[in-house]
């Protein structure tokens, strides 16, 4: 009688492993950059090419870097949330316009509203690579010391706010 349970046990084990395997999202690759200093760069600004932006300018502030592009459909999904965050002054949001045409990026912001304090312009996507970006949108929360404390891969969803809001508050109090 005991023997009959052996195949059953193997089967259940397999089911459990497959179940876990299928429920994982292979597209979400955890970033090794969380907890590390934000990679530095100096890029021209989207609206004014004569001005630049660098994460160094943000020392002493908690801020959000949102990687986005006008050709990115998912960016539109998170856009209302970003605008809401900006309207409520929850955290200063800086854009990284990723592999976009300058005029397309500006037109997109004019059409859908601009949640950014300013946007940096990364036409080659090199800064993106340096930040481990492999798709847009991606968002990085950076603390006062310039350390990346959290990364959201894909659109920021209302559920993410449950984590982001207390974290932003905590980082601001640090």
């Amino acid at each position, binding site marked *: 009688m005991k023997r009959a349970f052996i195949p059953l046990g193997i089967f259940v084990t397999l089911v459990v492993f497959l179940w876990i395997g299928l429920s994982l999202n*292979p597209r979400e*690759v955890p970033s*090794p950059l969380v907890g590390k200093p934000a990679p530095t760069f100096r890029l021209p600004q989207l609206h004014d090419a004569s001005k630049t932006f660098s994460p160094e300018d943000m020392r002493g502030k908690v801020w959000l870097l949102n990687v986005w592009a006008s050709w990115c459909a998912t960016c539109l999904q998170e856009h209302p949330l970003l605008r809401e965050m900006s309207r409520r002054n929850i955290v200063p949001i800086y854009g990284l316009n990723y592999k976009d045409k300058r005029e397309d990026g500006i037109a997109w912001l004019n059409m859908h509203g601009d949640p950014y304090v300013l946007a940096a312009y990364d036409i*080659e*996507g*090199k800064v993106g*690579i340096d930040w481990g970006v*492999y*798709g847009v949108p991606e968002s990085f929360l950076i603390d006062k010391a310039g350390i990346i404390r959290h990364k959201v891969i894909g659109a920021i969803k209302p559920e993410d706010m449950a984590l982001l809001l207390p974290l932003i508050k905590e980082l601001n109090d640090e």
Partner: protein
Amino acid sequence: MNKTLPFALLLSMLLPLAHAGEAVPTAEDPALEKRVMEVSHNLRCLVCQNQTIADSNAELAVDLRNQVREKLKQGESEKEILNYMVSRYGDFVLFKPLVKSTTWLLWFGPLLLVVLGVGVLIVMLRQRRKLMGQAQVMSAEEHVRAASLLSGKNKGDRS
């Protein structure tokens, strides 16, 4: 439904094939391109995850190859470039997983299963041999009875 829909579906099914060819290297410096491809074969394309960036024509793969090329030009070694990619994208970017404590199961799991299987097999064979040894030897009398039963003469004898 119009007639173009099935055609469009067929086309969309063929679409992945368009990416199947190995990315064509630029011809400016064949030796450098060879190195770029060598390094690229070790890096996973995070968009099309079961391909290396050498095999993929996804935009990110092209960008990453450019990055590899640039770093090689700057005289960085393959190891330095791979370390850079890991620091940005994590271990997953390596096409061949590292051997470390979290990947031991991945690397040695199959071996473990083989060992386990062989172990079970040995135990079972031993048990069987033991059972064979314990099997009762029939007496001459029983042999006679068995033979008569088999020949069918003693039909109806159920004692």
